[in-house]
């Protein structure tokens, strides 16, 4: 349905405009760029610069939001030169000096997105209009992230995406002022492919249960492409209402469908419920077509693993990062986070922490907070030592490219945090794709 929009060739044909606005008498207090290099929320000569952290504090993702907030606070500490410095010790190349950004101390404000687009934008606007933030960041849902990212473009304030996994975030809905470090559904599919092949073979029939909204659809599409590429058949793909709670009516048809793999394109509470119930319906113990029935959860998070308890054991999925990684960057981050809060960080915390550092570092590199220059510093920036190996912030779509982890639920956890076992670190080259396949347009630098 979005095929039409993807055509870049239509750009020149279709027109839009408000130039009307430009010429007429608009009071200066809401005009930007009145004096050349001046820009919205320019910290100017002040001693501080303000970041905004907009995370879900109420609603289903409140725990994830709380973890993100912890990571942000830690990042601010490290940027300001407090604590043990965390990833400042391992990040390369590094422009930050541990004395804030461009000599200014970083302070922050927080807000509650409630995992709702309206609330998130209201909260972001408060940060921009009242608190004067130069950058804001946060996540947990793609719809909310995309809504905030387009606001960023309208306002001319950079938005660093937290946890958002939809292809659209850096595809069809990408924006010049939005950046994503987290991976996406396409990469999940590409990374899972080879592992699924070696674990489950080439002859499988997959049954998808998909959350009925944009993120679910893009994930279903990406995973389907991969599995069908392996030679798997798709028995059926069924959409389930968001927040269905009881999924029994969608699970029972799987029982006798002849499918031998169930793919759950669900996230958060939906995934916890559907997985718990699928296991309850005995799917894990089933034999179909002479093979063991398997369940795959393409996007894993630790909180989901906690909520699903025993049911995740042996179930495959992907994740952006896991605290058990042994590289220097991951170790440094787990160490400072663990010492600060007493438990390891989640992948959401990791991506949020890294995003904050990356933004701060880009300002330092650019030598200014002026957004177009900062954006240019981030575009095409290649770095290492942040926990995912060598990583590229691709200029064309503001998507980070890095290794992706294929994980499975740990059969024999050694501790209460040891829920996911890393099966394979799929190298970056395997999950790369052409930026043009998802369409979209970044928009201008100057707004």
């Amino acid at each position, binding site marked *: 349905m979005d095929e039409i929009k993807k055509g870049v060739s239509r750009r020149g044909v279709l027109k*839009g405009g408000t130039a009307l606005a430009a010429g007429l008498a608009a009071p200066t207090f809401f005009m930007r760029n009145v004096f050349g290099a001046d820009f919205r929320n320019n910290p100017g000569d002040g001693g501080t610069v303000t970041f905004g952290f907009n995370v879900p504090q109420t609603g289903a993702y*409140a725990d994830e939001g709380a973890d993100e907030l912890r990571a942000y606070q830690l990042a601010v500490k490290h940027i300001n030169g407090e604590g043990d410095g965390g990833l400042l010790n391992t990040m390369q190349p590094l422009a930050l000096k541990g004395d804030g950004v461009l000599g200014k101390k970083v302070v922050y404000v927080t807000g*509650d997105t409630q995992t*709702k687009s309206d609330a998130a934008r209201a*909260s972001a606007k408060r940060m921009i209009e009242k608190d004067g933030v130069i950058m804001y960041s946060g996540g947990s849902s*793609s719809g909310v992230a995309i809504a905030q990212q387009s606001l960023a473009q309208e306002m001319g304030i950079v938005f660093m995406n937290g946890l958002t996994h939809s292809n659209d975030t850096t595809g069809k809905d990408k924006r010049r002022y939005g950046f994503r470090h987290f991976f996406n559904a396409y990469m999940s599919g590409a990374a899972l492919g080879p592992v699924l092949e070696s674990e489950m073979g080439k002859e499988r029939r997959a049954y998808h249960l998909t959350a009925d909204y944009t993120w679910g659809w893009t994930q279903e599409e990406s995973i389907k492409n991969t599995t069908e590429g392996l030679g798997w058949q798709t028995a059926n793909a069924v959409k389930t209402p968001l927040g269905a709670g009881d999924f029994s009516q969608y699970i029972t048809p799987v029982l006798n469908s002849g499918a031998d793999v169930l793919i759950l394109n669900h996230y958060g509470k939906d995934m916890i419920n559907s997985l718990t119930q699928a296991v309850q319906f005995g799917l894990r113990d089933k034999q179909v077509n002479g093979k063991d029935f398997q369940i795959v959860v393409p996007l894993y998070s630790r909180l989901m693993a906690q909520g699903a308890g025993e049911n995740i054991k042996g179930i495959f999925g992907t994740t952006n990062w896991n605290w058990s990684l042994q590289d220097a960057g991951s170790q440094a981050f787990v160490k400072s986070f663990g010492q600060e809060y007493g438990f390891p960080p989640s992948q959401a915390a990791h991506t949020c922490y890294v995003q904050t550092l990356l933004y701060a570092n880009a300002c330092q590199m650019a030598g200014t907070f002026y957004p177009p220059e900062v954006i240019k510093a981030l575009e095409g920036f290649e770095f290492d030592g942040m926990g995912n190996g060598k990583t590229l912030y691709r200029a064309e779509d503001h998507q980070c490219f890095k290794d992706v982890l294929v994980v499975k639920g740990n059969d024999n956890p050694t501790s209460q945090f040891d829920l996911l076992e890393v099966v394979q670190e799929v190298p970056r080259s395997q999950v790369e794709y052409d930026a043009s396949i998802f369409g979209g347009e970044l928009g201008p630098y100057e707004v």
Partner: protein
Amino acid sequence: MMSKITPQNDNVMMGLFALAILTMPIWLMPIGASYPDLMQKFAIFGIFAIGFNILFGLTGYLSFGHAAFLGVGSYTAVWSFKLLSMNVVPAVIFAVLVAGAFSFLIGFISLRRSGIYFSILTLAFAQMSYNLAYSVLTPITNGETGLQLAKSDPRIVDAMFVEVGAGIPSTNFFGIAMSGYSGFYFCAVLLIIGFYLSLRITRSPFGMMLKAIKSNQNRMSYTGLNTRPYALTAFVISGMYAGLAGSLLAVTDPLAGAERMQWTASGEVVLMTILGGVGTLLGPMLGAVIIKYFENIFSAFNESTLNNIFAFLPDGLQDVVVSVVGLFVGEGWHLTLGLLFMVIVIYLPGGLVEGAQRIRAYVLKKREKKSATSHQPQIAE
């Protein structure tokens, strides 16, 4: 609200109301609420609640589905921006009309029942709208992501007059961009007009008829009068207010999401109205302001803000105070809201406006005693 209902008093109230709204940027400053977005929300949800009160406050019909009209208004407005023009005037007009038509349809069916049956019918329609907008209607609503503007939108009318700019154009009122303070004043003017209309409706014979429906529908029917057209008119009017509010949400921030139609959003306007005072003129506005204030300001307090606020306390005490207060702000702001609902409804059954009236009555009584005049003060409603 005034001690007597007279045209003079109404005019005074109208004037004071307009003044209070237009000077919001000044007097909201001390409580940290004087930034454009929040004031826009005050005005917009004020319109929503005032309109809702025309139905609920006057006729007693409790709709649990008004968010659907708000959502429809938003979608219409964004489509108007996409297809026709970034000028807000057609967007607002279309939104009000479409929301009116939609509410006529739903009202026509739902008003066949009364009491809680009516409430559940409206709830059912709104939930259906929400669920469909979120999933199968995605081609129209863009589902979870919400309907957004794109650079490639046709904008037929604009395309005839202006050249394409570099980015996505912004909404404007004949050239005045509708973000920031100008957006607020646009909403504020419409709020004042909306308030004036609601005042006129309340005082009109039609308003009396609506109140009669509330107090005793049976008796009305026995007199041979068919009350349904009156109730339906009230329903459509309040639906149009909701549509206007929805369009203004899109005007100040051109994005429309399905969650605007969810039952929680319908519930919110019910809470605003009851919190402020059902059936009063100012109450709904007051309720809207309080709930939005909590949502935006209380949720933003975090530990470091609190530590700054209580920095004057000795260290040990500071930690204790911060952790206790922290329960009620930041991620705990819902708790404060819940407690507020309970306290207000337990001690001030008629909402905040009743509280104000009680104080007023108390003061008046004292004054009466002092001056020892003979006549009793008359408290209206």
